[in-house]
């Protein structure tokens, strides 16, 4: 019986073993391909679509833009690239100004987050292991709660009849309420409040690994504490500084919720402009061009973040 089967399929192994053999050689692709393909199709390729549509014209139809490639009845393929959207970005100064304004806002919020987050991370790194895990949980907890709701909660503090003004009026520090809502200050407060945990966590990760014998050596050699900090602690924690700063800086540039809910009409950040272009003006090609130009400006910071992040993972 067995020999009969063997005669029919002389070289091939039984199917089950063949499958096993195939799995052994190629099986890893069953693990790699699903996430690779999914992210390729639904994360990376969309950027290609945005690039293509940024060269299209607006049109009154569904979807509301023209095709770039068209085939005429006499079988000519026409490639129509409309550079007007990008020219428009440079001619209308609202785009340039909002890019610059977003960069400026993100830069100063990152600096303030760093100034506040560094001592916090340093203090946590210096506490005992059991206190560390509790403090870390306290820092991480807001990250888990809704971002939108936290911005909304901040509004309850800083609005004209909010807690801050009520308290200051009651204490007699001011005699009429401060206008914080709808100002630049509110946008800064919102960004710092929302992104502070992103700064503290990477900083803590590097400061925790810091070799204390180096600090003791510096102290033994007569270095005052501030010199030790500048010469030893700060350089060694640079990867954390960069990673934390980028985690605040990059999302803050594209922030939409904070300038919309807390800021005034002057706080035109690029995320808000992009949103309005899309939902207000329904100009998809210009919105795509804004997104592509924005992305080009972000390549530098993102590469910097990736570089230091992989360095930190390898360490």
């Amino acid at each position: 019986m067995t020999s009969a089967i063997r005669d029919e399929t002389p070289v091939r192994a039984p199917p089950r073993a063949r499958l096993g053999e195939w799995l052994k050689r190629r099986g890893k692709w069953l693990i790699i391909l699903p996430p690779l393909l999914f992210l390729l199709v639904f994360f990376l390729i969309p950027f290609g679509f945005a690039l293509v549509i940024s060269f299209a014209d607006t049109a009154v139809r569904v979807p509301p833009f023209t095709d770039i490639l068209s085939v005429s009845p006499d079988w000519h393929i026409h490639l129509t690239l409309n550079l007007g959207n990008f020219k428009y970005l440079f001619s209308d100064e609202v785009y340039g100004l909002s890019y610059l304004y977003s960069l400026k806002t993100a830069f100063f919020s990152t600096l303030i987050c760093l100034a506040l987050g560094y001592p916090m991370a340093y203090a946590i790194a210096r506490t005992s292991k059991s206190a560390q895990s509790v403090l870390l949980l306290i820092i991480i907890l807001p990250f888990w709660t809704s971002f939108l709701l936290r911005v909304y909660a901040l509004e309850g503090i800083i609005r004209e009849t909010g807690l801050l003004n009520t308290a200051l009026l009651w204490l007699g520090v001011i005699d009429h309420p401060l206008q914080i809502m709808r100002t630049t200050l509110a946008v800064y407060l919102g960004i710092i409040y929302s992104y502070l945990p992103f700064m503290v966590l990477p900083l803590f990760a590097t400061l925790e690994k810091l070799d204390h014998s180096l600090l003791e050596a510096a102290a033994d050699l007569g270095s005052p504490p501030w010199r030790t900090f500048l010469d030893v602690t700060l350089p060694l924690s640079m990867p954390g500084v960069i990673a934390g700063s980028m985690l605040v800086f990059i999302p803050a540039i594209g922030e939409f919720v904070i300038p919309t809910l807390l800021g005034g009409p002057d706080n035109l950040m690029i995320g808000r402009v992009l949103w309005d272009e899309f939902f207000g003006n329904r100009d998809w090609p210009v919105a795509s061009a804004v997104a592509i130009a924005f992305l080009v400006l972000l390549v530098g910071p993102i590469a910097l973040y990736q570089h230091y992040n992989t360095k930190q993972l390898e360490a």
Partner: protein
Amino acid sequence: MENRISPFLISILCIGIAVLYIPILVLIGYSFNASALVSVWGGFSTSWYTQLVHNTQILDAAWLSLKIGVVVSTGSVILGTLAAISLVRFKIFRGRLLLTGMVNAPLVMPEVITGITQLLLFISMLHLIGWPHRGFTTIVIAHIAFCSAYVTVTVQSRLASADRSLEEAAMDLGSGPVRAFIDTTLPNIAPALASSWLLSFTLSLDDLVISSFVSGPGASTLPMVIFSKVKLGVSPDVNALASLMISLVGVCVVFAGYLMRRADRQRILDAQMAER
């Protein structure tokens, strides 16, 4: 080392933590305010919570968000874990650099850009192949794309530190590679899987920008409804809703943190017992 924290550091730490928590606590306080005028304290009341139960717009949106959240976090954990296994276990393969980039980029990519590009893809796909229609499906796909990145990062670090010797022992004893992985390494990374499921769930439940872009008419998630209400100013029923959501998440995270710590401690204890 522990005693040498300067008062300056302690005070900054306290200020920082106060900044993070005071707005939330004040919000919860206001949610029990009987007065509809949010600035005046009109006595203790739970009436806003009762009103919430009868608000069908909010209930429908919450139900949609919960459904999306469950599908998204399950899908993200599966895809994200596969990506983490690929990156940790297969050192060299074609597309490794691409995969590394694609799991790290969503973490820092501004949501407006991700949202707009994904919408353009969905619109073009619908035009070309008639799928997917904007709404539940597109929100789920868009959320999985960024949540799986968080899963990968979480699971990756856990997997990299996991001891492979048990898995090798299982394979020496005749288990296939998949079986050996499921029997030995999977229980080891289970806490990371659980916490990344929860993280994906909260990220999905919270997302406003990407959902607003890729959603279609009629599919409003909870953040979209909250955003449209909040844009008009402070409203007391949103206070109640916000307090509910924040406390629920807070309790879950603290509980999960407690469970993970206990599991970790048990693992260390087991390891010590095994060494004897």
